[in-house]
């Protein structure tokens, strides 16, 4: 039982074991699966991480790029702002200048308008005045006419004649003066006030004249009264005479003439007063005129000074504007540089890379120092320009002056050339200079030669003249002079000349002879040479005769000689030779040879050659014979 239980237990244990084993297997499978999952997950994770890294790198790249872009944009922004500031400044400048121009033009316009109005007013005033004047002149003329008429009538009053003449004259003068005044009035507007015054004085005059007229009326009455009184005087005289005749004459001067003289004196007084007035007014007029001229002068002066001052002001304004501009520019520059530095430093701080190398800062410092240097240089140059006047007008003046100088230089060069020509042409020898030439120069030689010839001819001529005179004298004195003529027919000088010429000619002849001789010698030697050459080559000796004949002798047989003669040219044409004679010697068969060669063949060279051959054969034979003979003789001896 125990055993069974044990076996049961064992079986259960076995089953449990199997179960457990299966469970274990399951677990293993599970573990394996889990392991696989884990691996997969780990791969995923790794991939993810790589991806992330990549992303981060890209991001960083992007960021760097954007930073760069940002920087460049910032720089461009800065430059643009700068441009903007520039443009704004230009704009303000332009607007300033345009507004200035507009203002000046407006002011000019207003002044011009004012001037126009003023001128128009003046013109109307003047027209008005002119009309007034003409009217008054007309009136004055009328009155004057009336006055003259009345004066004509008044002249009958004898004692007043002189006064009236004076008055008329005065009136004439005044009329003239008025006319001149009118013309001057039309021209000078500034004299308006003066002329008004003048007008007033004319009014006064008119008043006076009216008064005078009235007085004249009074005078008319007075005249009538005078006539009446004269009549009365006549009557009273008659009465007085009658009384005188009746009684003693009584000295009672009439009362009427006294009244007349009284009125006359009053008139004279009035006239004097008038003249005085006139003088005063004219003096006033002069004074005013002088004042006016003075004022005008002063005005023009002040105008000039004003313009000068204005131009100065303008120049100084320009300078100030320039300076301002420069200052603003410099300020802006400084600001810009500061901003640049700030931006750089900010960048440096922001980047934290520490990569803003020192070289760059060094470079910036260098550039700044360079800038400072340039600025100082510019300042120096400006100062120089200022010291030079700084005025473009001055510059222009200097330029024109230099141009003038250049022109002058050109002129002077031209004159220098001309003067050189003077010296070169030999017309001027500079002071302190000697002109020398060699004593024995070709020109002098030529001159001397000519002089010599001339002298000789002169002396000969003189002598001949003398001789001629002598002959004439002797001709007159006939036979007596015959003896002298025999003595000296030709003057000595001529004889000398002829003698000299003769000597020269003799010299020439001698020279020629010598030359001829030399030539002959040369010719002789040459011809000998020639003959020898022919003799040795052809074996023939030639002798040329003056008549053209040629004697030919064989070298090998001296007795065989022939004489040839050139045929006349008309026959053969050319120099054909003709055999005309022969020596007594020669080969035995000479006649045949002559027959054959000369007559049949007509070949003299062939004939001569065969003769030579024959002669040579003969000569050779003779030689051998002679040798053998001598040999024999020698042997015999």
């Amino acid at each position, binding site marked *: 039982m125990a055993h069974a239980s044990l076996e049961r237990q064992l079986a259960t244990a076995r089953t449990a074991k199997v179960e457990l084993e299966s469970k274990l297997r399951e677990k293993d499978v599970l573990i394996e699966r889990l392991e696989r999952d884990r691996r997969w997950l780990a791969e995923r994770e790794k991939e993810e991480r790589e991806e992330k890294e990549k992303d981060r790198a890209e991001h960083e790249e992007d960021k760097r790029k954007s930073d760069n872009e940002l920087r460049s944009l910032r720089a461009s922004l800065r430059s643009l702002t700068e441009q903007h500031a520039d443009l704004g400044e230009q704009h303000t400048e332009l607007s300033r200048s345009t507004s200035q121009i507009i203002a000046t033009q407006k002011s000019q316009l207003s002044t011009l308008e004012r001037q126009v109005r003023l001128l128009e007013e003046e013109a109307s005033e003047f027209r008005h005045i002119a009309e007034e004047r003409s009217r008054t002149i007309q009136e004055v003329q009328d009155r004057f006419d009336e006055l003259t008429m009345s004066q004509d009538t008044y002249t009958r009053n004898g004692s007043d004649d002189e006064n009236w003449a004076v008055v008329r004259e005065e009136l004439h003068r005044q009329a003239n003066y008025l006319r001149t005044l009118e013309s001057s009035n039309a021209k000078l507007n500034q004299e308006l006030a003066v002329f008004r015054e003048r007008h007033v004085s004319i009014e006064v005059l008119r008043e006076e004249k009216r008064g005078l007229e009235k007085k004249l009326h009074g005078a008319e009455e007075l005249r009538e009264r005078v006539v009446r009184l004269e009549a009365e005087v006549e009557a009273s005289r008659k009465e007085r005479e009658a009384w005188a005749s009746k009684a003693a004459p009584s000295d009672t001067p009439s009362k009427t003439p006294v009244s007349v003289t009284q009125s006359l004196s009053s008139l004279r007084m009035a006239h004097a007063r008038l003249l005085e007035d006139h003088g005063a007014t004219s003096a006033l007029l002069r004074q005013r005129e002088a004042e006016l001229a003075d004022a005008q002068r002063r005005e023009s002066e002040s105008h000039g000074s004003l313009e000068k001052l204005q131009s100065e002001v303008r120049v100084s304004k320009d300078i100030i504007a320039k300076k301002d501009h420069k200052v603003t520019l410099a300020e802006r520059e400084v600001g810009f540089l500061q901003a640049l530095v700030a931006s750089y430093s900010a960048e440096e701080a922001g980047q934290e890379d520490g990569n803003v190398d020192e070289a760059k800062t060094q470079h910036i410092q260098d550039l700044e120092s360079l800038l400072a240097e340039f600025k100082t240089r510019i300042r120096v140059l400006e100062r120089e320009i200022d010291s030079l006047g700084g005025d473009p007008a001055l510059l222009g003046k200097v330029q024109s002056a230099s141009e003038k100088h250049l022109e002058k230089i050109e002129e002077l060069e031209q004159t220098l050339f001309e003067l*050189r020509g003077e010296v070169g042409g*030999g017309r001027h020898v500079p002071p302190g200079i000697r002109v*020398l030439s060699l004593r024995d120069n070709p020109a*002098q030689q030529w*001159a001397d030669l000519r002089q010599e010839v001339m002298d000789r001819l002169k002396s000969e001529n003189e002598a001949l003249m003398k001789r001629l005179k002598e002959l004439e004298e002797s001709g007159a004195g006939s036979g007596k002079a015959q003896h002298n003529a025999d003595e000296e027919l030709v003057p000595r000088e001529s004889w000398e000349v002829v003698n000299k010429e003769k000597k020269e000619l003799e010299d020439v002849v001698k020279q020629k002879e010598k030359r001829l001789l030399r030539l002959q010698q040369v010719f002789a030697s040459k011809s000998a040479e020639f003959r020898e050459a022919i003799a040795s080559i052809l074996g023939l000796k030639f002798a040329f005769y003056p008549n053209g004949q040629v004697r030919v002798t064989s070298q090998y047989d001296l007795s065989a000689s022939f004489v040839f003669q050139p045929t006349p040219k008309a026959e053969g044409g050319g120099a054909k030779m003709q055999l005309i004679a022969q020596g007594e010697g020669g080969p035995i068969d000479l006649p045949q040879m002559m027959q054959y060669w000369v007559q049949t063949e007509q070949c003299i060279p062939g004939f001569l050659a065969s003769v030579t051959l024959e002669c040579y054969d003969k000569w050779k034979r003779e030689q051998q014979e002679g040798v053998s003979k001598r040999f024999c003789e020698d042997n015999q001896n």
Partner: protein
Amino acid sequence: MAPTKQAPTRQAITLKGSTNLVTEFFKYAVNTILFQRGVYPEDDFHMVKKYGQTVLVTQDLALENYLDKILKQVNKWLLTGGVTQLVLAIISKDTRTPLERWVFDINLVEQPAGSSEVPPPKPESEIQAEIRYILKQIVSTVTFLPIMDEPTVFNILAYTSESADIPADEWVDTDPLAIEASKSQQVKLRSFSTDVHRIEAMVAYRYDG
């Protein structure tokens, strides 16, 4: 080719060297004028290579002697600076009127005062080229100078300073052989200069226009 021809270390030309150069130039200039203007017959001249061109030089012994004598004296004067001008005057044989005056002004080249440094010496090839140009110009003047159809003779005048040393037995004061003012024309020719002398040439001639 050029660098090998000119020695780069050549010294500046001396007074003596310059004087010799100028004297030689006168010799060839005078010969050229005498040939070109037909003062002597053409057969009297023979060709010589000089300054890299053909120059005609006289063979007439008398003329050669005359020129030698003058040039020797001119050489002496040049060394002492006693001569300021040389003139070759061509004169009509018959009327004895001066027809042409070939004037050579001799100036001393002045070193600009104040500049301490000596200017670089002028290469001899350049001087020779200048001389060549003058001689060529003399030849070419035949084209515009009036034709001389009468026999002529010439004389050489030297303009010297009063203080110059003058051999009295050979040289005499003379007439400057002036050309009539109303008929005178002048043409400036080229010039040449060494480092010491500067020669300016000119021809004045009589022109009955």
